[in-house]
């Protein structure tokens, strides 16, 4: 099995096997097995505190597991050194649940950060790409937004700036930790469209953590549910919907977005 996992697979970009993680006495991840499909939107749902954010941080090596393996394009990223892991991390972009904007930089500098760090682009082009993203995320209308610092933004604005920062240099794999939580319905729809378009237009592999069932069913290609430290259901959206696990069924029906036997709203 190990041989098969350590080859680059056409379909699966990230393969997670038997991932365990504890914090002190608390076991958060108890043996996660999951495959992430290349170029598709892979949504992970699950209750609050079930370890979704912790799981996502493992994917790009921000946390190291107690046990288990993560293969990114056939390369096991567990136990890599500083420089080797940095090379893998170049494939990734991440939208943090609480934005994690750099306090000491203003909005433009925050969004341009990945570009300035990685490439030598002319200033004008950088600014153009930043402004384009601000426009697409409905931020351009906010007066003076470009020179504002993170502390001067609302929660939803911060979130979208964080999104822009992750999107600006179009990484191969994008991890979104609750990209739409706390946004109004219109902004939510725009962000959803943006995630969908990024995946379709650039073939970006997306992993999205979401609480929002309506948007999950709107944009997901694949759905996985994390419950008590393991993946209890995963597969194509249709598969998962056709024969839902009882916990998943309850979770989804309570949200009111979808009724099994009916249609997605």
């Amino acid at each position, binding site marked *: 099995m190990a041989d098969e996992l350590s080859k680059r697979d056409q379909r699966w970009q990230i393969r997670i096997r038997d991932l365990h993680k504890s914090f002190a006495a608390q076991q958060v991840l108890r043996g996660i097995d999951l495959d992430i499909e290349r170029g598709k939107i892979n949504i992970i749902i699950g209750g609050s505190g079930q370890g979704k954010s912790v799981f996502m941080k493992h994917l790009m090596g921000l946390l190291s597991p107690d046990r288990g393996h993560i293969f990114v394009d056939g390369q096991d990223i567990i136990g890599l050194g*500083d420089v080797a892991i940095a090379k893998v991390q170049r494939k990734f972009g991440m939208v943090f649940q609480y934005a994690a904007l750099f306090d000491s930089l203003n909005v433009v500098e925050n969004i341009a950060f990945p570009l300035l760090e990685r490439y030598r682009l002319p200033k004008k082009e950088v600014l153009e790409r930043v402004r384009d993203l601000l426009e697409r995320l409905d931020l351009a209308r906010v007066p003076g937004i470009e020179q504002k610092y993170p502390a001067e933004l609302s929660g939803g604005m911060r979130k979208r700036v964080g999104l822009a920062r992750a999107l600006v240099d179009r990484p191969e794999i994008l991890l979104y930790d609750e990209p739409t939580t706390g946004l109004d319905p219109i902004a939510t729809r725009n962000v959803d469209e943006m995630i969908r378009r990024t995946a379709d237009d650039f073939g970006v592999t997306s992993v999205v953590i979401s609480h929002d069932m309506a948007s999950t069913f709107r944009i997901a290609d694949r759905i996985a549910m994390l419950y008590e430290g393991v993946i209890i259901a995963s597969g194509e959206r249709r598969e998962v919907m056709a024969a839902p696990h009882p916990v998943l069924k309850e979770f989804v029906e309570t949200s009111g977005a979808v009724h099994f036997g009916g249609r997605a709203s």
Partner: protein
Amino acid sequence: MTASPAPPSPQTAPPELAPGRRFHPFALAVRAFAPLPGAVALFGEHVILLLRATLWLFRRPFRLRLFFDQMEFVGVGSLPIIMLVGFFTGAVTALQAILALSLFEQQRYVGFGVGISLARELAPVFTALMITARAGSGMATELASMKITEQVDALTTFAVNPVHYLVTPRLVASAVMLPVMCMVFNVVGLVGCYVVSVISYEIDFGQVLALFRHGVDPIDYIEGILKAFCFGVTMATCACYQGLNVRGGAREVGLATTRAVVSTSVTVLVLDYFLIEIMNVFFPYGGL
């Protein structure tokens, strides 16, 4: 991996004593030395951080702006307080020296006494302590709050190594600016000494200067500067270590700052002793 391990806390887990054997000498010894492995590990982690930050210094990209920002923060920002403290340290030392020297009617040695105390001891140590209080605490607070708001993780997601981006510039800035500030302290301290001895006590300036020049050697200043350099490295390492290893929330940020200031101050004073011993081997003190 970039996830940093928790600082091993030396307070934890003194081995429980079996009831009735409370005063067994061996158990007491075990208890007394229980924090030792933790302390050694803690020291080791500081050294590792220092080594990593030093190695990253030679890797591209060189973000010069970060270096200059930090130098400004550590150096220029500390200038007023260093000048204030330096002046009064020089003045007070001069006062005390004059008091002592007047027993022998030898007040003209004041420039020598104050000059050498400042150069070898007062300037490097006081500079280190003042800059720790100001800039070291600032570094620890800034890194700790970046850590708990996931900004450090965010750096990693752009394949920027946090040690490279955050620690290396602070380390270099401290190592460069502490010696500079130490020299400023020396100069201002001598001005303080001049004001007290020549202006206020009317001791003959020519004699004070002559004895100062006779007794204080450039080696004294070199020793002081070398010490300031070591203290700068110590300060940046302790502050960044505490900042990057914080866990939790706002309360922990405050604790990290406190720990950074305390650990730097203690290390500076202990290190001072050993540095003197080492330097005495290389530059034996000549005296007058």
